């Protein structure tokens, strides 16, 4: 800056090289600015990209053994028990992806990345207390104190990589299981099959919307509705009086009075159509609406069967309403004869759902489930003859498309058999068979006969450059020291002293570099050579056998 600030004549007289320096400085500044404009913004991104590429190249090079060895080195911050457990999980991961080892390594990215993931999830203080108790029994993570966070982190990686191996959640103990069907009380048994029927009811609302024009005048059929109106009025009164009971009966009402529920949905969805078709309903009070609604819907869709199924179970008083067929229901009887066959299918679907919630433990339990399912079918068939007249009129079952959707689900749930992944997963999580290495002594002797001379030759070859660099380093350091001493003792001109000091510093720096190179060659490369020969001996002359 001082040079640039001076006038050109003065500057050139004092500093003959100043024009060269100034021009070269300008050129350097220009180059730097160009670089900054074009690439400088993304220097960080470039460095990230380069780092990623380096990781990728690392992934391409390393194999399973190197990956695990590197990971084991990086996980030394963990307690030994935890480290072994984590390593066993990764080994298991490699076992599963045996054919696609490189794929797995590429998705795991690098051992460093995995170590970071584990380190983030690892709480050393927390583990310090638990490791002592776990050391007695290594496989008690889940039973005693919950899964440690680092195991969850590895499990998450596993889930990401092997989604087909994910564990299906087991049902809660309090949950009603299909296998407990024989022990269930009658009330619970009545509640169970209602679920799919409710689904069918809610899914068939579109059918009613199509036939809303055919809604009859409620005054014409007031007689059969009176009984129901009385019962429903009573229930509404009881609801107003006692809230807990109504809350308990909500689920029952949903299925015991499905037509009213559908009517409610319809009135919410298409209020204009209902007002156009049945203007009396708008004027009538709400209980009257509930009176007319069941019959009208019954006539339209001819669905006394499902009503009866649901109503029979909860409200046997409503039989009078259901057992009266209307003209439209007679007309639709033939059309719905096929749909009436879908009753056992929906029941099977319901049973399949209950089966999917059941606890999958053994194949015998599955067989037991099948037998129980057969019994349930028989019980359904036994119930059906009690209402033979209204059976073919059932239309509140699933339409054929929905059946087609449900049946494959049922088949899949039987074919896939969620028992296998969960058991496999548990085995994967807990399987850590301890092994030890058994050496093959004759082979080891043979290997040593060959390896020792070769290793010695290589060591000698490495020793020569190490010694040369050390001698050169010593010479350079000595020369630098002599120059420093002579600079301050024998020279009077400042420029000469600066030149000598500069060259002395550079020589000392090079001497230091060469000295370090010698130390590195002796301390690191030779140790690596010996270690690699030892590793080779272990790899070739030993095999893993299960520890006793």
């Amino acid at each position: 800056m001082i040079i640039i600030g001076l006038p050109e004549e003065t500057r050139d007289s004092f500093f003959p090289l100043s024009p060269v320096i100034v021009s070269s400085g300008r050129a350097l500044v220009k180059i730097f600015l160009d670089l900054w404009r074009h690439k400088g913004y993304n220097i960080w991104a470039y460095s990230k990209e380069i780092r990623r590429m380096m990781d990728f190249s690392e992934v391409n090079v390393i194999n399973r053994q190197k990956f695990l060895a590197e990971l084991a080195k990086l996980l030394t911050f963990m307690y030994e028990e935890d480290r072994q457990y984590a390593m066993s999980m990764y080994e298991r991961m490699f076992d599963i992806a045996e054919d696609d080892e490189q794929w797995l390594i590429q998705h795991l990215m690098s051992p460093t990345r995995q170590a970071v993931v584990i380190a983030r999830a690892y709480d050393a203080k927390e583990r310090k207390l638990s490791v002592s108790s776990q050391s007695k029994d290594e496989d008690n993570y889940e039973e005693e104190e919950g899964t440690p966070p680092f195991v969850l982190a590895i499990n998450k990686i596993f889930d990401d990589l092997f989604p087909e191996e994910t564990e299906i959640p087991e049902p809660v103990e309090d949950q009603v299981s299909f296998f407990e069907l024989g022990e269930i009380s009658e009330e619970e048994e009545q509640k169970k099959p209602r679920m799919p029927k409710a689904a069918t009811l809610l899914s068939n609302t579109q059918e009613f919307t199509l036939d809303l024009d055919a809604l009859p005048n409620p005054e014409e059929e007031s007689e059969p509705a009176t009984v129901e109106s009385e019962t429903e009025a009573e229930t509404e009164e009881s609801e107003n009086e006692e809230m807990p009971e109504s809350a308990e009966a909500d689920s029952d009402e949903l299925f015991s009075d499905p037509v009213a529920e559908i009517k409610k949905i319809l009135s919410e969805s298409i209020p204009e159509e209902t007002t156009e078709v049945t203007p009396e309903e708008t004027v009538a009070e709400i209980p009257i609406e509930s009176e007319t609604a069941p019959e009208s819907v019954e006539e339209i869709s001819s669905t006394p069967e499902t009503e009866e199924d649901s109503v029979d179970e909860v409200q046997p008083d409503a039989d009078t309403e259901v057992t009266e067929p209307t003209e439209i229901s007679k007309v639709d009887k033939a059309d719905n004869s096929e749909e009436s066959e879908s009753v056992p299918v929906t029941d099977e679907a319901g049973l399949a759902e209950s089966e999917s919630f059941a606890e999958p433990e053994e194949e015998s339990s599955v067989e037991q489930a099948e037998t129980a399912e057969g019994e349930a079918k028989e019980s359904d068939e036994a119930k059906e003859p009690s209402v033979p007249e209204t059976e073919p009129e059932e239309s509140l079952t699933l339409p054929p498309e929905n059946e087609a959707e449900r049946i494959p689900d049922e088949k899949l749930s039987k074919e896939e058999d969620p028992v296998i992944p969960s058991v496999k997963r548990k085995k994967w999580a807990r399987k850590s068979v301890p092994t030890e290495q058994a050496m093959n002594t004759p082979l080891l002797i043979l290997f040593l006969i060959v390896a020792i001379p070769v290793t010695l030759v290589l060591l000698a070859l490495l020793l020569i450059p190490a010694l040369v660099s050390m001698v050169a380093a010593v010479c350079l350091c000595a020369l630098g020291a002599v120059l420093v001493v002579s600079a301050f003792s024998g020279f009077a001109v400042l420029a000469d002293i600066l030149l000598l000091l500069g060259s002395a510093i550079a020589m000392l720096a090079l001497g230091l570099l060469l000295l370090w190179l010698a130390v590195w060659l002796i301390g690191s490369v030779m140790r690596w050579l010996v270690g690699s020969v030892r590793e080779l001996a272990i790899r070739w002359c030993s095999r893993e056998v299960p520890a006793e």
Partner: protein
Amino acid sequence: MKNGWRVILGIVVVAVVVGALCCGVGVLTGADTARILQNLNDHFHLDAYITAYTDYAKQILKFLGNLF
């Protein structure tokens, strides 16, 4: 070892840069290499060492030439 390499390389780079700067400033401020060599020669008798080692090398080469 990696940290060692980092530290050593850092020191070396800094030292080389400083040395280069010193040399540059010395050259810019009028340092003369002939004068420096003359001064060192007077102080350490470099010519005598150079002449002696050159003679040793010639004798060794002559000996080796006679052998082969």
